[in-house]
């Protein structure tokens, strides 16, 4: 069979996001895949070195467009650790609720992408509709639909508007009510499971060797979640457990996502009950000339796509000296994707990529 080179390019129906993979193909089977990111590279970390600490906030949530809230959280945690700011108790709870809500919204987006990729349009319409209900909650809480700029060093930017918790609970109940429908049409549907089982298998050794995080290694049965290993915000004050599956293929990854979404909804209910009263913002010194003492900090949090890390260096000035985001899609989208695509057939490229939750702007930053 003749070898061909196929551009699974940035403009492609199977490609969600702006990312391209060059495939060396023999017939329908892929011999070799080279990821070709860079379409969304804005040089974030360079731009952030040119702006003062507070001015970076609107910029930092634009790194990952599907899940901007964990980006804000990781930067806020980094700045708080460097500058030694404590966060009031209620703000920790508000942050946890806000992050779990963000996880639900970004998992629903992932579900839309994956179901749309495989042609299950009913499920993808449902998922996007439910996500839009969650976005209405965000809009009411923070004032922004997608980019919320809500988590702030020293707490959060505004407290819950009154009556917000009941609306949140009722929305989450309405989404929870549809879970049986999702199961029958998608997760337990033979059409889907035949399509996703055994596709894009990533064994645990491969995943660990290539720095896989989040769903990729939880689908191989490993209970690794930063919210348990290195708890932050109010995650250690509420009982919850990590969901895993065993055979590491696309099907088990999306099932881990499904279980995590349900777990997040339950966690939100527990967090709301355990939330104390008090203020949610511990005022930060004047942002126009706020100097943070020299030092470095590495903070981690569990974003919806996996473990997100931030290495922050300050030289005692008003601007960060170096910012380096370690995003989960970096490992999934480059090393692991290129390895698992080998041997798969062309139709499964989108399937594997979406099951690994690769988001292009996270790779290029």
């Amino acid at each position, binding site marked *: 069979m003749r070898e061909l080179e196929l551009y699974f390019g940035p403009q492609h129906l199977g490609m969600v996001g702006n990312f391209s993979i060059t495939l060396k193909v023999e017939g329908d089977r892929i011999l070799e895949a080279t990821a070709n990111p860079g379409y969304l590279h804005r040089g974030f970390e360079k731009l952030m070195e040119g*702006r003062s600490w*507070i*001015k*970076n*906030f*609107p*910029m930092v949530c634009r790194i990952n467009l599907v899940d901007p809230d964990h980006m804000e959280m990781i930067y806020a945690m980094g700045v708080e650790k460097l500058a030694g700011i404590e966060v009031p108790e209620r703000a920790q709870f508000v942050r946890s609720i806000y992050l779990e809500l963000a996880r639900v919204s970004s998992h629903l987006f992932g579900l839309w992408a994956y179901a749309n990729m495989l042609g299950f349009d*009913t499920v993808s319409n449902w998922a996007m*509709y439910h996500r839009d209900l969650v976005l*209405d909650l965000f*809009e*009411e*809480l*923070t*004032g*922004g639909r997608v*980019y919320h*700029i809500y988590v702030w060093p020293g707490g959060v*930017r*505004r407290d819950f*508007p009154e009556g917000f918790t009941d609306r949140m609970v009722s929305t989450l109940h309405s989404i929870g009510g549809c879970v049986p*429908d999702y199961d*029958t*049409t998608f997760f*337990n*549907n*033979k*059409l889907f*499971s*035949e399509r996703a089982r055994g596709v894009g298998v990533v064994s645990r050794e491969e995943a660990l060797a290539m720095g896989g995080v989040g769903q990729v290694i939880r689908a191989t049965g490993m209970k690794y979640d930063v919210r348990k290993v290195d708890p932050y915000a109010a995650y250690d004050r509420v009982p919850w457990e990590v969901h895993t599956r065993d055979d590491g293929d696309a099907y088990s990854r999306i099932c881990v996502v499904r279980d995590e979404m349900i777990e997040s909804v339950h966690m939100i209910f527990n967090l709301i009950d355990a939330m104390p009263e008090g*203020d949610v*913002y511990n*005022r*930060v*010194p*004047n*942002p*126009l*000339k706020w100097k943070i003492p020299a030092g470095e900090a590495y903070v981690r949090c569990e974003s919806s796509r996996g473990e997100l890390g931030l290495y922050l260096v300050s030289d005692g000035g008003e601007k960060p000296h170096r910012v380096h985001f370690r995003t989960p899609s970096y490992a999934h989208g480059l090393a692991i994707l290129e390895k698992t695509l080998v041997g798969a057939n062309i139709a499964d490229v989108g399937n594997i990529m979406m099951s690994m939750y690769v988001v292009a702007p996270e790779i290029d930053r």
Partner: protein
Amino acid sequence: MSKRGFLNSLSVGKHLFGKPKTTCYPFTPKEPALRYRGFHLNDWDTCTGCGNCAEICPNDAIEMIEIAELESVPGMKNERPRLDYGRCCFCGLCVDICPPGSLRLSRDYFHTHFDTDTFVFTPRDDKADQEKFVPDESYSVLKASLSHRKRNYEGFSSDLDYALFEPERVPMPEIPPTERKLSFVEQVIGYSKEEAVHEAARCLGCGLCEDACPAHMKISDYILAVYNDEPEESLRKIYEDNPIPAICGRLCMKHCEDACALRLRGEPVAIRWLKRFVSDSIRDYKTVLEQAPGQPTGKKVGVVGAGPGGLSVAYFLRLMGHEVVVFDELEGGGGMIRVGPPRYRLPLASIDKDVDYIASLGVDFRFNTRVGKDVSFEGLRQEFDAVYLGVGLTKSRSTGVDNSEKCGLALDFLRKNKTDRPTAVTKEIVVIGGGNVAMDVAREALRLQQIQHPGEKTVTRMVSLEDWDEMPATSEEIEETREEGIEFNPAWGPKKVLLDDGGNVKGLLCMKVKSVFDDEGRFAPTFREDEEMVLEGTMIIEAIGQGPDFSFVPEGEFEKMEFTAMRKVSVDEDGMTSLPGVFAGGDIVNINLDAVTAIADAKIASEGIHRWMQSK
């Protein structure tokens, strides 16, 4: 995964009969959330044009532009923010830092156009801009754009608990009233280092204060230096415009704090106290400032009066290299500052600290020499290339009611207390007057009573023509005086000093005041004859204002001097009076009657003298 798994997914058909979930926008409207971050609204009346929003914007989307129809007033520039929606990311940082809270976001977000220039927009709000903000009935979503917006559609707005600036001031440690009225020790203790740094951190560096300060001091620079923990750099910045920081740090009328951007929704930055912290924290100015007088120019300048004006002219001219000789009738520098304010507000040590530094630059101070008595004014004009009059208002006015010669005059009373033999005070004192000087007289009298009659019951009363809200004294001063238990009798006028048969003072007969100023605002008090009151008091002091004392100017010259309508010396833009070579400044020229305006006049006059002497 039996075949059934495939079939039962058809059970989802039940959603066919549910309500459609689609929001058929724009036919069924959807209200954005109450906190939505849409286009900007700016209330042009409360907006101070300080430019902090432009400073904080991460994308340089805000630019401050001059607005022709607004006029610039201290504390309110005529600049307003202009937004470039090709840059704005709707983050709301500008709303959170806006000190007056005038900039906020609306819930409008529709704007579609093919021309990018329409995305640049100077926001106003529906109060001021009626044709852009249409009432609801004529608002249509399809026509919505930056020039077609909804009325009172406020979205994300500022909230003081989450503001990016600190509204409250760092509290200044003071001695409590009960304790401070017993002695002359300084009432305001002053900031510690980290209190000063914390207060200096509040300053947003917008520069509104610098336009309001008569001497245009570089305030945001020296506050930034205090924030960076470099008091030396801060002192150098102060000394570029003001040679008497220790005095001004305690005494200034702080026009800057009345213009500070934070004043509208919080307390202004304590600029005066920070200046005082800088001058207190540096023991010896000389080592820090390293200022050397310029090359000697061979010119000599005589300065009459060592008040703030005289000291500043001496300092500026000395730096230019001229020879300067300062004459003053008191035994030390400071002029009215040395006599007027009591020691618990301005200790003599602070005055001498500033004066000694100016002397160390080579200025020749000749104290206890009164021009017109020990030295003749004409002699001065021959000996020196130029003369500067910084004499200030030294003559106390009297009420002129009968037996008023028995009353003490404010300035003599205050001046005597500065010497080692303070005036002997009786147990009941009445002070006539409602200005700052009257407050100082009353509080000094109260302290002298505690010292001279320890343990006995003493009464200090004040009577002033003006009612509570018309009193010329600053509200802080009135507040502090009332705290110390001094009795106030506002809106009463003195009619006659009552004497007992021994000829010494027994009390003051007062009449009720109907009105103080006539309709043009001129001082013309009217009284109600029928209502009278007697205030007991064995000692009466009049503190109803001071006038200039030009007795040292010989008759011939005095006619040539021109005066303005407010009986002030009229000077040209260089500060020169109608007499050639004679310059003037301070309280005899301007109507502000405070030290920092005297310094501002002195700066102008010193450049005027310098140019005038070179042209001669």
